[in-house]
Structure formats: C-alpha cells, structure tokens
C-alpha cells in the first residue's frame, strides 16, 4: 500500500502527518513501513536520522526526487506500507507518486491561503486518477484552532474540500505544541507522553483513514 502525503502548499503538516502515519502503521498495526522523503527540505529524512540515534523503534527512510514511479513500484514488493512525504510544491515526485499510489492524503489548514490551492490540487488529483484508477483520495484538516468559537472555520474548510471531492476526514488534528515538541526528540505525537491530546488526534485520523480505505 502506497500512501502519498501531498499538498502544493507548504506548512500544512505533511511531514508531521507522514512521520506519524509511519509510526502508527509500524507500532500499532505491526506493518513493515518505509518512509520516502521526496521533499528537498529533508524534514522527514532528518527526523528519521534523529530517531535512528535514539532508543525508539527505527523507521526506515529513503530520499527520492524527480520521477519516482519505478522506484516506488519496486519498493512496493518489499514493504507492506510506503509513506511518501512530498514537498510543498507541484513537483515531479508528487505527480509521479500519485500515478502509482493507492492513497493520497492531503493535509490542509483551515486557512484561506492554504485552501486557495485546493482547487488546483483537486485538478491534479483528477488527472492522476485518469492514469491511476486505484487512487483513493482523502483530505484532513490540520492545526485546527482549539477555540470552540472557531469551529465554523473547520466546518467551512471541510465543506470546501467536500465540494472539490477531496473527501475530508471527520477527525482533525489540533494546533497543539506536542506536534512540534515530539518532532524535536525524534518521536511522533503517538509516542509523546507529556501531552497525549495530539497523539489521540493523530490516532483518530489514521484509524478513520484506514477504515475509509477498507470500506471505501
């Protein structure tokens, strides 16, 4: 199963989601997970490097750029789950990964600047689906405001993503410091013991995602 975490807009939390999903699949579903860092910023590769030096269970990570279709097809035979972390750009790596992936997960913040790229991303996904009919697409609201009075922003963002057929997940991740703090220690929020709220958010999102993939 190849998961592509992508969005043309940077800062939506692609790397955090990709890293946490890899940890979730490895530790909570006991699958053989491989992370592919296709982002020139190397956020995920550096995170995996820090993690490898710690006592935590290692997550294998490789770096790929350009047209990565052939590599992904070969790796698919070796790993049960491959999570591709794409950079915040419309790159060849992102497009080529979409042509062979099973699942595309698009993180969006409930912010105007983030959501402005949603129509363009929906178009790219549509094109990718004409090549790869197996591609299932979902979106997730990340860094959601924690104030209840801001809930309308989340609902509005979900409505927009729904209208673009990007299937927003019911669960969201909140704007919590644990995402940042856990990353610094080479951990994921799922392992961060100081504050479990972010880990619960991630767990709910991934659990819903896997359920949707299974039933959808």
């Amino acid at each position, binding site marked *: 199963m190849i998961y592509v975490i992508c969005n043309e807009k940077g800062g939506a939390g692609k790397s955090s989601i990709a890293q946490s999903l890899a940890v979730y699949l490895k530790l909570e579903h006991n699958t053989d997970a491989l992370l592919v860092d296709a982002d020139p910023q190397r956020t995920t590769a550096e995170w995996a490097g820090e993690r490898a030096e710690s006592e935590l269970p290692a997550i294998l990570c490789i770096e790929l750029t350009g047209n990565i*279709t052939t590599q992904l097809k070969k790796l698919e035979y070796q790993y049960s789950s491959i999570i591709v972390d794409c950079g915040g750009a419309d790159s060849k790596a992102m497009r080529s990964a979409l*042509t062979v992936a099973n699942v595309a997960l698009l993180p969006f913040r409930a912010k105007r600047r983030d959501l402005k790229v949603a129509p363009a991303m929906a178009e790219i996904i549509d094109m990718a689906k004409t*090549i790869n009919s197996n591609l299932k697409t979902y979106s997730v609201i990340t860094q959601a405001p924690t104030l209840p009075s801001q809930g309308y922003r989340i609902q509005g963002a979900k409505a927009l993503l729904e209208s673009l057929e990007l299937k927003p997940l019911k669960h969201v991740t909140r704007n919590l410091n644990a995402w940042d703090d856990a990353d610094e220690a080479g951990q994921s929020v799922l392992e961060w013991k100081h504050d479990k709220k972010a880990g619960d958010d991630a767990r709910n999102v991934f659990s819903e995602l896997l359920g949707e993939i299974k039933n959808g």
Partner: protein
Amino acid sequence: MVNNPFGDIGAKKKAKAEDFIEDAKVDGSKKLDQQARRGANYKDTKTGETINLGGKVLQVPLNAYELKTLSEAALQEGLPLATFLRVIALKHVKNM
C-alpha cells in the same frame, strides 16, 4: 455500443502518465523559464500550450563606421537594423 451517437459526450480526457509528470510546475520539463527572453516561446491559441522556440539572441559587436553604414542601409530599406542584418545574411546564404 459501436454507433452510439453520444459516444463523444462525457468521456473524461485521459492523461498520459509521462505528460502528467512533466507538467509539474517546479521541476517538470514543461515549466516556463522565468528568465527566458521575450519571444523565446509562444502560446498556441488553440491548445493554450506554451511552445518553446529554439532561437538564440546573438550580440554582434560593430564599430562606429559599420554601425553608421548598416543603419543607413537599413533605413533605406525601411527595416529595423537587426531585421535588415538577418535578411541580408539569409539572402547571402541562399546565393552561396
């Protein structure tokens, strides 16, 4: 149905994988060169596709005498100097 009169309606345009990948804005081969000189490409009005042209801009050093003589000749022919040089040179090539 072979003779479906509506067969051409509603069919989704299928992208070619190679074209889809190369259309990437950041590193695709079809990306526009922001530093490209004016006239380095043109937009096909029918398809909207930007087509790169294979030309090149040359800088030709001229001394004051050459510049004056060639400018006067170009003026006499009613052509901009650069066009005049291109036309004359190509004519010469054809007669070689």
